[in-house]
């Protein structure tokens, strides 16, 4: 067990965990931020995606110890003052989910993409999102949601 101060969704939180416990496990089981999901634990499904210093990252593959100095954004940190982020709003408007279990990871991956590439082409969307699985098969709506978010966003970035 070691002590860490994590920067999660703009707040500094203290957590005790083994250095090599996955960030996913720490977020869900120690900080009770259950919006980030487990789907495989092996980097193959994207359900666990968070932003680490703005980069969409599989939290199941990151040891908590190595995330201690990063700015971590989870799905719980995208809404500000009751206002959904552009990507969240676009997913809602497009109805881009069924069971919704993949949705947090999809939204974080899309947010990371739009921060890097504010106006992605269809191919760029597929490339960036291909590591995220939706077993319910809502891919076409997710692509539409990302395009909608890209249109609605000010040039600055996707985080607001």
């Amino acid at each position: 067990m070691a002590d860490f101060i994590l920067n999660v969704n703009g707040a500094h939180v203290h957590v005790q965990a083994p250095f090599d416990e996955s960030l996913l496990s720490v977020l869900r089981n120690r900080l009770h931020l259950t919006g980030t999901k487990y789907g495989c634990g092996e980097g193959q499904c994207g359900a666990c995606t968070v932003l680490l210093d703005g980069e969409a990252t599989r939290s199941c593959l990151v040891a908590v110890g190595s995330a201690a100095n990063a700015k971590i954004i989870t799905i719980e940190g995208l809404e500000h003052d009751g206002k959904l982020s552009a990507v969240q709003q676009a997913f809602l408007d497009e109805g881009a989910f069924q069971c919704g279990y993949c949705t947090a990871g999809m939204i974080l991956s899309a947010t990371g993409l739009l921060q890097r590439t504010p106006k992605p082409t269809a191919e760029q969307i597929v490339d960036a999102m291909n590591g995220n699985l939706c077993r319910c098969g809502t891919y076409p709506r997710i692509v539409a949601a990302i395009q909608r978010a890209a249109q609605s966003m000010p040039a600055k970035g996707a985080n607001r």
Partner: protein
Amino acid sequence: MSLHDQSLPELARNISHGASRNIQLDRRDFLKILGGGLLVCLAPASAWVQESGRAFGGHELPKDVSAWLHIAAVGKVTVFTGKVEVGQNIRTSLAQQVAEELRVPFDSITMVMGDTDLTPWDMGTFGSRTTLTMGPQLRTMAAAARETLVQMAAERWQVNAATLTAANGKVIDSKQSRSFTYGELTHGEKLIKTVSGEEHLTPATEWKIAGTAVAKVDGRDFVTGAHKYPSDMILPEMQFGAVLRPDGFNAKLASLDTSAAEKLNGVRVVRDGDFVGVVAPDAYTAQHALTSIQANWNVPTQPSHEGLYEYLKSNPETADENGVQHVAGSVKEAMASVDIKLEHQYTVAYIAHAPLEPRAAVATWADGRLTVWTGTQRPFGVRDELMEAFKLNPAQVRVIQPDMGSGYGGKHTGEAAIEAARLAKSAGKPVKVIWTRQEEFTWAYFRPAGLIEIKAGVRRDGTLVAWEHHNYNSGPAAIATPYDVANQVIQYHPAKSPLRQGSYRGLAATANHFARESHMDTLAHSAGLDPLAFRLKNLTDTRLRAVLQAAADKFGWGRSKSTPDRGFGMACGTDKGGYVATCAEVHIDAATRKVTIHRIVEAWESGAIVNPDGLRNQVMGGIVQAIGGALFEQILFANGRILNAHFAQYRLPRFSDTPQIEVVLLDRKDLPSAGAGETGIVGLAPAVANAIFAATGTRLRNMPMAPAHDRQHESGTQFQS
């Protein structure tokens, strides 16, 4: 106790403790518990309840009502049903139907679902039954409630009820320009109305809330991470459990050393026969403890995926082959005189449901009573499993099903619930168990593999005259041909499955349609007829003809000819009240033989549409899910072990596999609404097979049709995806 003294769950729990187990409960008691308002129940003797009992061969009729609906003194409506929401959107579509019949705003409805304490008994959420049976049941109750409220208003005003109307949560007397809200009418009342199922329902042509694209209830919670799935449940003092898995199916524990695990801080090892589990204060330690257990297992020799189909054919489930489904005329005689005869075998592999949320449960014991939150399509079935495992009576077990990370037919059972309950009992604290992906791939159950043999005969003019269809192991769903053919033998042969198998979205309808529609396509080409013309020539079912034509029109069928690098194919079919036709455009790379599904047009009809947006989403999702089984999904196994129990080895459809998809919905407001979560999946595989044939002349008869390289020798394909 007044209504306002109790939270909704408390209130409902109290109701169901009294009532769901004994509908004969004294009515005054019932009302006392409820606190007031109007309660509507569907009588057990009603036609609907009988229908849903009869349809599931042998299961007893529900002992109590199938659903109930309560209008509180404040006008809020609460609907109680044992159905569960798993992404198919029934929390929304059922509420729409209640709002419609009751004439209340959509957002005044709360659905309480899938909780064995709060809701009436329900068989489970599968077989596309919700829209077909629960929809009309709820509509019937809502219509009765509305009529009761109108009657109450008429009595207060001393007018003829026929002069009053109900709208927007009010009963209105337009002549006198006066109205009562429903809350004003139910305030201070303690009424129970039992409905017989004879109510007059609003026809779909007059629907204002049902039939529209109402957005998913609580949609916002799904984009903010606020929604709590079964795996997200957290209880005070909750511990984390993990279970030691055998080295293979049917293995026996030979030796066990748990000493290292027991030395870990806070870890408890639980052993009961061959069941070995650990409980730890955190998830990390639980996994660590599990991996530090040394165990040896004796695994018996078992069949593998090599030679599977011969195995299924030669290992019937029952000694006597009496499973004849359907015989008409004489196939033998007809075959003797036809011009074109074709006989082929088709296969489908075992595939995994792979719901993104694996099995998960949180269990807690208090005062001899067990409560489990778990992801299941059958909360009452899981309650039965728990009662059996721990020798409890129904009042001692509560199963709660928070809207879960889906199932697709794969979560009918309660494995994780039993494991969590077992560990929690031993630990004396609440325990959470979440299966790993590898566990979900290995210890759940699979869509059955199957072998299908079809023999058919056609006259030179394209008339289908003989059809013989044998399905080994995969199942009888949609095995009957919708085409007109005078001479038929259609038979399902259950086999001894080497793997644990069970329900899957669409059941065997996918396999049977793959075989039938591929065979029909081959017959069309042999007879020199266009596949659309050949189908229409042998088809009188008007609903199926309509979707076929609609798909063909939208697709532009016949406008371009297939070429070696671009093929067009079609397929159609029906099951569970849904009618589907699928057209596919497939591209094939000449050098690599890589198959890309470029475009899919699917036409769908399932009676009156309840929510076009939800329906479109379901049909599209079925198409995408179907791509996996059609092209590359396959469980590989040998000697009781799954060889590809990871997403890295078991490929699922991804963004890059997704074609352009166009869904055409036909809205038959004159027909009852049927479920739409399943049958939309059946058209894709045969349409793609037929498109590949049209382009290349190669007929692929084994699903998956374009598996990974090292599997290609078995399925005889040179195509990849």
